[in-house]
């Protein structure tokens, strides 16, 4: 599978407002099936790179290609189907506050067209996968930080996505859980998914040092 360009950034600049420049002339490629860590100090632009791929942010200049498709210029109506092909773990978890844990999973499945029966069967194993079955009926505000994070990760994996974008997925997790989660992502990677993880967790980087690391600094790639 290696050698097929899956993601390609070409001279991407992102400016928020007039004065904040989050990315300056960023170019890189990620091949199909790669597992890449993005590291760097806070504010260096890691989240922005992931958000460009999910079309939460549009570049001021440059292009972002996914499977040869120009993500940054596709019509708004194509965005939902773009996102359905990815698993997104936002840095702030992005859980629906008025839905219980299982409903958060259920909504994501239903929204992408799964049938009710499928959903009912799938939820239990998905929650067990991240050790959350006992908290299925809790609202996000009733869960600990780590539990929310695992719920967000579980939700990202439901559609067996070919591209996983995980933003600090272990920020609120203890060492054991962190390793468990990254191992899970690694397994999905071995089954063919491309995985991009933004992290500052040195322990994780050490344990999974076989993967590619892209280092960001002040909105630029300092080491790839």
């Amino acid at each position, binding site marked *: 599978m290696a050698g097929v360009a899956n993601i390609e950034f070409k001279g991407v600049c992102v400016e928020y407002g007039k004065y904040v420049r989050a990315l300056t002339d960023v170019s890189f490629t990620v091949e199909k099936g790669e597992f890449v860590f993005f590291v760097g100090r806070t504010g260096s632009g890691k989240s922005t790179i992931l958000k460009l791929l*999910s079309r*939460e942010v549009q570049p001021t200049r440059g292009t972002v290609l996914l499977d040869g498709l120009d993500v940054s210029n596709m019509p708004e*109506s194509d*965005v*939902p*189907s773009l*996102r*359905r092909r990815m698993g*997104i773990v*936002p840095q702030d978890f*992005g*859980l*629906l*506050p*008025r*839905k219980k844990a299982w*409903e958060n999973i259920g*909504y*994501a499945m*239903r*929204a*992408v*067209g799964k*049938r*009710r029966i499928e959903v009912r069967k799938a939820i239990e194993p998905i929650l067990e996968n991240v050790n959350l079955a006992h908290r299925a009926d809790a609202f996000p505000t009733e869960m600990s930080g780590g539990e929310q994070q695992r719920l967000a990760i579980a*939700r990202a994996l439901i*559609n067996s996505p070919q591209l996983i974008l995980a933003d600090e997925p272990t920020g609120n997790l203890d060492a054991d859980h962190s390793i468990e989660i990254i191992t899970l992502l690694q397994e999905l990677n071995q089954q063919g998914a491309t995985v991009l993880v933004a992290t500052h967790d040195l322990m994780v980087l050490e344990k999974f040092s076989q993967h590619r690391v892209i280092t960001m600094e002040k909105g630029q790639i300092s080491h790839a």
Partner: protein
Amino acid sequence: MLDRLEFLVSEAFTALRRNTWMSFAAITTSCMALFLLGGMAFAYRGIAGYAETLPSKLEVRVFLVDKRTDFETKQAMEQIGKLKGVRRVALVTKAEAWAKLQREMPDITKGISNPLPDAFNVSLSDVDEANKVATSIRKMPIVEKDGVKYEGETQALLSQTLTLLRWVGSALGGLMLLTSAVLIYNAIRMTIVARRREIRIMSLVGATRSTIVIPLLIEGIIQGAIGGLIASFLIMAGHQLLIRLMANFAGFIRVGALPLILVFGSLVALGALYGLICSMFAVRDPRGIA
């Protein structure tokens, strides 16, 4: 397909249930709006019905010259009957009139012979036309000089009061329409603003615009319909109250019965439509779904 529908509807119901406060606000708002609007409509209906019965009480009296043929009389009656605003024309002979006057005013009529002319009693269906009718009749040859009498002032008063009522009613009704539109739009817009974050998250998991929007529309419809239902009950109650109050007044102000099915049906349907339209507007704003 059915499965999909079930999903969208159940999303709407979950939102209604979890979002108790917002639902309460939207429902009370549309209820108030529809109550005002519906109450106004039915009150107007009642007043208009009542008003229609009024003009019949008003008549123009036409005194006739003595020298005329029966044919002329008949022709004149026909002509008058065809005038706009005339309901009925009746001939009152001098004998009939004198007999009545003798009964009513024995002092004046005692000991004198009948000085009265024959006359037409013209009932009006539209009191606003009184002046025109009178002018037309005055020109007829068989009518005495200055022989057209009617209570112009009282009639004008009544007529203008009724017109005023109609104007005020329409103005208030229109205002209600506007107010309730603003209110329901506000209620739904607030829901959406309050949920902006949620909507962002939904779209992040790949939900299409319609998946996000349809439950909101259904929510609006349901809230509007429930508001209409409650408003119907309030109108029924108000109507009962009115009947109680009016029982104290003798005479001809009668509060008619309310058509039950019409009230409920129209208010619930109107509420649902309103909820739908307002939520469509609210949902449309591009800042809402982003």
